[in-house]
């Protein structure tokens, strides 16, 4: 097992954990946490392929990941704002109950 394979295995496990959390939890915030885990698994892949790829000198992978983190932060902010809006509307954050777009 070389380091790349170990990294990919780790990120796969992390992705599976995140997916399970996103699918299985009913709390909207925990679903968002699962999504974050899946995204970070993808970021880990970027880093791994950059670090053990053919051109580790240029900082391409890090830049990619920094962008992804920035986008993810914005997305999470929107997601949390939605969660707050849902809470105000139905006084809980259960995702299974937020089925209607109509207020």
């Amino acid at each position, binding site marked *: 097992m070389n380091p790349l394979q170990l990294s990919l295995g780790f990120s796969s496990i992390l992705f599976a954990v995140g*997916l399970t959390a*996103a*699918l299985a939890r009913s709390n909207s915030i925990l*679903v968002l946490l699962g999504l974050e885990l899946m995204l970070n698994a993808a970021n880990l892949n970027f880093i791994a392929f950059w670090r053990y790829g053919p051109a580790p000198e240029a900082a391409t992978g890090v830049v990619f990941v920094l962008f992804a983190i920035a986008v993810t932060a914005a997305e999470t902010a929107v997601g949390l704002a939605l969660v707050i809006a849902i809470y105000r509307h139905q006084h809980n954050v259960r*995702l*299974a109950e*937020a*089925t*209607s*777009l109509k207020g």
Partner: protein
Amino acid sequence: MAQLVDHLWLIPALPLLAAAVGAVTPRRGRRLAAGAAIAAMVGSLAVSGCALHRALAVPAAHLTSNFSWFDLGFGAVRLGWLLDPLTALMCFMVCFVGLLIFIFSLDYMKEDENFTRFFCFLSLFAAAMLGVVVANSLLQLFISWELVGLASYLLIGFWFHRPAAAAAAKKAFLTTRIGDLGLLVGLVWLYDATGTLLLYDGGHGVLEAHALAGVAAPALAGGLAVSTAIGLLIFCGAAGKSGQFPLHVWLPDAMEGPTPVSALIHAATMVAAGVFLIARIFPLMTADQVLTAVPIHALTVVAGVGAITALLGAVCAVAQHDLKRVLAYSTISQLGYMMLALGVGSWVAAIFHLLTHAFFKALLFLGAGSVIQAAHHEQDIRRLGGLRGPMRTTFATFAIGMMALAGVPFLFSGFWSKEEILHAASEWNVSHLPLYAALAGVILTAFYMTRLLCEVFGGAARTPEAAHAREGSAVITVPLIALAVGAVGLGFLGTPAWPWLQSRLTGAEIPSRSVLEGGGLMALSIVLIAIGLGAGWALYGRRARTTAAAPDPIAAAAPRLFSFLGAGMRFDAFYAATVGRLNGWAAGLADFLDRRIWDAAIRLLARLGEGTGAANSAADRAGLNGGFDAVSARIRGTGRAYSRAQTGEAHGYLRTLAVGFVLIALFALLVGRR
């Protein structure tokens, strides 16, 4: 005055204007309508007088004024005015007699509420008749000719609320239309053969040598010349209008019209139009005379028809009881004489007789009108009688007219014109049968006119109406006197000793011949007239009828013959049994075809159309509509299925995404490996 011919249109235009005025005048505008009509006639008479003066100065010339009516692709339709002695004399006669009759009508129609309409129609008639006379194109003549027919229809049916008058008007219109069909076909053929319908056109007209030479060839089946066929077709029209056998049946019935109408149209002018037409196209009628091998000449037919008509009219006149019908049959007979004269080649004699006849027949009809008005519209001569005392002027003028018609020698115009005709007939080299028919007619004419005069004016009044009859006003008597003067004086224009009229009409000097030359014939006719007059006096004058119911002497002797003649030789019944029945069958056949054959075919087509429509509609509904409906239902179903997937549950979506991702990944792994 050279341009007079350019203004010849004024002659028909003035009465036409008067007719237009009359047509828009309300009923109470009697003075306006009658005044316009009479003023127009005076104006036309004045122009005619100038034209007559001009035409007599150069009698041989045919002055014309032609113009283009409208242009067609292959040329122009040209009309024109024609001035020659024939035109001028006819115009003058029509205007003069017409004017007198218009004046007479002022009094005769004074109690009719449609007085203005009457004068409108009279003016229309005068305009149409003058249009016939001055036309230099056969097309123009035909147009006016039909207008004459229309005016005649309107005037015969003037009292249209009487069924007999309405039927008579219809009969006159339809009968003359049969002849006019021949005329129209003749004109079309003539146009086809010569390329023009102008009569005189500086050498190119149909009556000039160039065109005549073209149509005088024996080109038809049986060696018949083209001009013969065209001439006979045109003669059909003339026969219809002039009441010639076998189309004479409308003329006696036309007496249902007001008496001035009978005088103007059915005695003096309109019925003379046929004679005028044949005289006008006389060069065309004689074009085939140069051919000797043709089976028949057009003029031979004209002479034959004229002779038959002259005799037939005279025979039927003997047995009439209606004052006006006696005169109507005598008109038929006299028109037969004119046609006879045309047929034997003497158109001058025909026109001479036409002119004298116009005067004395108008006189007789107006005299009859005077009697009828005085006797409260009693027309049956058996119920009149004894009028010579109370109606002296009418009696005197009527007697002059009667003697002119009967041909009493030397003093009266009818004698001279009839002598001309007899003379011409005796010189005809084809047959002498027309002469014998004409001579028999002479006896009968003298006889029936004596009968009429004795029945109406002789004896004693047989009914209260006749007893109360009084002479009318000067409006009635002055036209009678004027016409009586003409009936006497006109004859002296054309005596054998001084043939002024003949030489003026032909434009060539005709040598005068002694009255005694051909005196044998004249003596014979004088004897025949004397026999007729004597027989009439013996039967009706010597012992006048005493009661209205007493039988006629001839009826007492031969009742069946008398009633046969009284019904006009039963021509009406004969036509009803032949032409009428044939027409009925044809109509029945047409009706059958219409209902059973054409209608069925049309119904079948309709059914077919209906069937196609139904099939179309079914295909539309089942095929097209059904197809679209099915497609729409499917789209709706799909939409419903998709919308079921839109649950709004984020977990569901996420799950689907994950499964889809896994499937794509598996697919990529499996396919990508190869």
